[in-house]
Structures are given as structure tokens and as C-alpha cells.
């Protein structure tokens, strides 16, 4: 029986530190403020950016409905997953949460089983409505109720799929 080689551990030279330098001269508030100000300026564009991502999700969904296959399913997952990250950054946290639920459904559901289209459709529509009404408040009761119902349906679908897989 051959003995596995032990791990080799070494510290490469810290080229980053050598390049950027840096001394403890107090917090560079100006740089952070500059970055936050730049971010504030970009925020004016966030809504338009999210609109583009939602359009992509809609196109991916339409393509999936027209022809359900591995490629269109992957595209739909990627569009949902992108929206999950983008919407959280671009100040639509509730859209991020719905997109997260959609991504979980697609990612976890058995790849050989057809996705429950009505639930996918409900997610896509919920995202459109939240955007249309520009709901950014994470305590919006109507939106939260809708999202919790979507998450519950996803949970049920995944449980049913898992039970079916166990029986087979």
C-alpha cells in the first residue's frame, strides 16, 4: 500500500503588500466616503439595471416554456440566480428573496423531472409585480405574505419530489 505524500505548506511572498504599502496612519475615511458617494450616484441606475435582469429572466422563462431541456433549464436557473445576487445589491431585497426561492427550486429539483411550471410562473410574476410597484421595504406585508406562500410551495414541491425519489 502506497503512503500518501504529506501536505506541503509554504508562504509565497506577499506581492500585494509590497505593491500597496500601507502604514497605520488612521482610517482613510475619505476613500471610504468617496466609494460610498460613487455608489450613491450609481444607485440612480439600479432600477434600470434590475429591469434588464428581470427582462432576461422573463426571456429565459419563455424559452424554457417553449422548449424544456437541459440548456433552457440551466439558462433559467442562471437568470434566477443572477437576479438573486443583483437584486440584493441593487436595493430590491424582496426580489432577491423570490429569486432565491426560484433558484432553490430549479437547483434542488431532480434534473430528470419536469419542473412544476405553475410555481415557476408564480415566482416570475411575483418578481415583476414587486418591481412594478417598486417595493423595497422588506416589511411590506402583502409582499411578505406572497413570498412566504411561494417559499412554502417550493418546500412542498421539493418534499414531494424527495418522497417520490425514495419510493422509486
Amino acid at each position, binding site marked *: 500500500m502506497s503512503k500518501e505524500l504529506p501536505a506541503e505548506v509554504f508562504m509565497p511572498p506577499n506581492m500585494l503588500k509590497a505593491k500597496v504599502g500601507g502604514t497605520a496612519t488612521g482610517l482613510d475615511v475619505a476613500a471610504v466616503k468617496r*466609494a460610498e458617494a460613487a455608489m450613491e450616484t450609481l444607485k440612480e441606475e439600479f432600477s434600470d439595471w434590475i429591469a434588464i435582469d428581470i427582462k432576461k429572466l422573463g426571456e429565459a422563462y419563455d424559452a424554457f416554456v417553449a422548449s424544456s431541456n437541459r440548456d433552457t433549464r440551466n439558462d433559467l436557473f442562471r437568470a434566477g440566480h443572477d437576479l438573486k445576487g443583483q437584486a440584493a*445589491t441593487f436595493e430590491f431585497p424582496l426580489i432577491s428573496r423570490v429569486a432565491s426561492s426560484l433558484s432553490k427550486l430549479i437547483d434542488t429539483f431532480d434534473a430528470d423531472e419536469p419542473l412544476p411550471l405553475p410555481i415557476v410562473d408564480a415566482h416570475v410574476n411575483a418578481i415583476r409585480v414587486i418591481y412594478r410597484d417598486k417595493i423595497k421595504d422588506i416589511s411590506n406585508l402583502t409582499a411578505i405574505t406572497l413570498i412566504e406562500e411561494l417559499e412554502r410551495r417550493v418546500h412542498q414541491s421539493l418534499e414531494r419530489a424527495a418522497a417520490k425519489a425514495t419510493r422509486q
Partner: protein
Amino acid sequence: MPRALERVERAGQAMSGYRFDKLKILVVDDNQHMRKLVVTILQAFGAIHIHESPTGEHAWNNLREANPDVIFLDWQMEAMSGIDFVKLVRTSPNSPNPFVPIIMLTGHTHVDHVRLARDAGVNEFLAKPVSVKAILSRMISVIEYPRPFVRTKSYFGPCRRRRASEEYRGPERRNVVEPTALDDIPNNENQDGRHV
């Protein structure tokens, strides 16, 4: 507060001395708006040499020319994923710099995804939403607290143990060979896959 985080917080006090204008930074993301956001924040920190790539393939094909000091990388991209890109950078004999720090930006938040990224050779993991503070803290981490590199039969990349594990006082699981002193190598940009 975890010790590692405290160190990062303290390191934030040293940022005014940083010359981000000296760095070459590569931002790889298939979403142009996310790229714009990250680039804008980095520029506000003073970075001026920023390359952008819309795909993993584009980034890989231009890696030698871009020669980045740090890479910000999206996970979910069409064709070559961020994980595939990291594996190429770390292990391909054609990689121009297997040691380059890689900060992965992703919508994935599950611990299994963090493990997967870590096992591919990512230095730092940044779950979206992206913010000024999140980017700053990851930059400080790779500048001030670089991880040692590890080579085993199945892995090459930054040490996958959490930095907080330095508080561990028990016996070492890993049978470490004498550390390889690379500090006398003047520039890790001269390293290639065969060298490590």
C-alpha cells in the same frame, strides 16, 4: 468578535497608506452592471489599472496580458464558471500566476458552496449583496493576511483552514513537510505551474 475579524477591523486603520493605484485588478463577471459597480468602488479606492472580462474564457485568454495582482470573480457564468476558472489558474501548467489572490463574488450563500469555492482555491468569498465595506474588508484580508499555500495530492491553493484556527491548541492533523521558503524569490509573477 472573532479574532480574524478584529484584525481586519484594525487593518482598516492602515488603509490610508495603501497605494491601490499600483495594483492591477481583474474583474470577471458576465453582468456588466455588477462589473461597473465593483469597478466604480475600486476606482474610488484609488485603483486605476482595472481590466474587465465578461466571461471566464475571456479572462483566461487574457490573463497573461492583464497580469492581475488581484482577481474579483463571479461564480455563475455561461460556459466556463468561476470555479472552473479558479481551478485553471491554480493548477494549469499554462497559468501565469497560480498564487494570484482570487476574491469570489457570488449569490450563493449555502455553506456547501463556500466549501466548493474554498476547495477550488478561492482566497476570499463575498456573498452578494456587494457593498463598499465588503469589498474593502476582502481587499484588506488578501493584503494583510494572505493564506499560506498548500499542495497535496488532490489540492493546490490557499490554505483552506479558517484563519481563526490559529487559536487551535490541539495536535496537528496535517503532517507538514518542512515549509518551502519562497520568500527569496523576488516576484511570484515569475512562477509557473511547474514551479510549485
